[in-house]
């Protein structure tokens, strides 16, 4: 069984982002970029499934401008067997990404498609659900545990939901999106980084995949959130209780 993992290049989680003065977006030039943390977790899960003997190949996939190749090389260094880059300089909203992923799934025919639950730049949390809908595959979103049963051809997925943990059993092929506690991703070791240089990255364009990426969304502006009023440091517990009671009136 092949596993396909979608990975996204995003602004690093530790960066303090700045909104551009012209409100057209967030400043991303000269800013540290990394693999989306949820995508790292997805790739790690795929690698573990392969290492347990339940999958033959892990394919990392990314869509976007030429710099995506850097993120794919990191994925290959972690242990993915090969990679696919769908090159596009246009903005790709989640629905377009879902359509492109479906086209790649139709080509590669994996038994499992793994995505991060959300990208930490747009925080959309949509793509996995959408590609599952387009493929008419079952979905296990916000997964905190995945157990594959090759004999019964199912995946048992434990999910983090508002009320706690929910367990579903999905027929394969299926789409899984990863939550934070699914695993701890490995670091790429130097020997693996070197090996990754000779692994294959295949390129496609949206046109070659017959996918129309024209979007039905338009970003009008990006602004800063309202700033909170500066607070005060109180000197003691008594002072705190007094302020909460008599100044803030919350207790």
């Amino acid at each position, binding site marked *: 069984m092949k596993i396909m993992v979608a990975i996204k290049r995003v602004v690093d989680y*530790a960066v303090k982002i700045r909104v551009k003065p012209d409100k057209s977006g967030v400043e991303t030039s000269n800013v540290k970029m990394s693999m989306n943390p949820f995508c790292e977790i997805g790739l790690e899960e795929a690698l573990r499934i392969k290492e347990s003997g339940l999958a033959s190949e892990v394919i990392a996939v990314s869509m976007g401008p030429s710099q995506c190749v850097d993120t794919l090389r990191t994925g290959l260094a972690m242990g993915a067997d090969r990679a696919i880059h769908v090159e596009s300089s246009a903005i790709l909203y989640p*629905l377009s990404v879902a359509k492109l992923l479906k086209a790649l799934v139709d080509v590669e025919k994996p038994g499992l498609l793994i995505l991060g639950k959300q990208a930490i730049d747009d925080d959309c949390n949509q793509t996995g659900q959408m590609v599952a809908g387009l493929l008419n595959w079952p979905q296990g979103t916000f997964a905190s545990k995945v157990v594959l049963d090759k004999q019964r051809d199912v995946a048992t997925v434990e999910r983090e*939901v508002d009320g706690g943990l929910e367990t579903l*059993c999905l027929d394969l092929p299926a789409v899984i999106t990863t939550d934070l506690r699914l695993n701890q991703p490995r670091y790429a070791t130097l020997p693996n980084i070197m090996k990754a240089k000779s692994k294959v990255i295949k390129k496609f364009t949206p046109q070659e995949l017959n996918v129309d990426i024209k979007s039905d969304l338009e970003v009008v502006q990006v602004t800063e*959130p309202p700033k909170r009023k500066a607070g005060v440091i109180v000197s003691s517990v008594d002072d705190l209780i007094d302020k909460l009671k008599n100044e803030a009136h919350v207790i």
Partner: protein
Amino acid sequence: MAAQVLRRKTLANLSAHSSSLFSKSSFSLQRFISTLVLGEHEGGSIKAQSLSAVVAAKSLGEDNSISMLLAGSGPSVHEAASVIVADSDTFMYPLAEPCAKLVHLIQQKGGYSHIMATSSSFGKNILPRAAALLDVSPITDVIEISGPQLFVRPIYAGNAFCTVRYTGAGPCMLTIRSTSFPVPLTSANSKSDVAPISQVDLSTFGEDKVCKSKYVNHTSQDSERPDLSNARIVVTGGRALKSAENFKMIEKLAEKLGAAVGATRAAVDAGFVPNELQVGQTGKIVAPELYMAFGVSGAIQHLAGMRDSKVIVAVNKDADAPIFQVADYGLVGDLFEVIPQLLEKLPEKK
């Protein structure tokens, strides 16, 4: 008793603007808005969070015909029923695959201009899948509705707001953040027209065409404490609590204040508390009157989940902790000394 009050509240909210599934759309010179709200229910009552979606739907415009869809099985869904009921064993558990397919079916019959759900794990799981079936880009986690097709949503863990316009021909599909659309308290005695109830014809649903996913089980913590998502006061602990045993201090303080308990990712990862207490960018978003954070450093990802709280209190040994930059009241001190003092000196909850 609570269920009846909730049902009455729901019907009061929907009454002025509800319509049955099969009413004809009337096209006038004014843009006609009709909204389908995906409602979440449990044990015979509509979940409070779903009512936020109704509040948001009302803000789309004056002439908005709002219908709530409830999918479920047997008596429990009929008790909660307000407008559109899909009653079948297929919907015994809110699985994304049949629910998204149901929305697709209903949209094809009903031609709604808007389809909405709350941005809960239910809404987040189902609505995007339904959107893909309808070839529509959804807009998720909306915090402000600026126009029938114009929405504001947070990006980069809430450090920027993005205003997005939907330009497609299909229905406008969104999930809304319930803390941004609070449900006004309605008096239990308010007289309301009962919204008509209609049942979905599921004869063409086609069980075989729905792909297979099965509900196995779920865990949950029954607690007498208020629900984290809409509690008036939240008391949160971080990794500095050091153990699940110590975390009980947070619980005691929450009990004293009649508050809900929250936790940082670090505290959940360390096993002090279960995952449903996590507040943050990828956990729960809360906006209580009072948020008290003990031993919480204030990482960007945690702030994303609580920065809209009215009053923020932070207690931390480290004077340079980022949390003090958002706190209205900060106390630099050892939580193991501060919490016992608070327990002693705080007035009993009203």
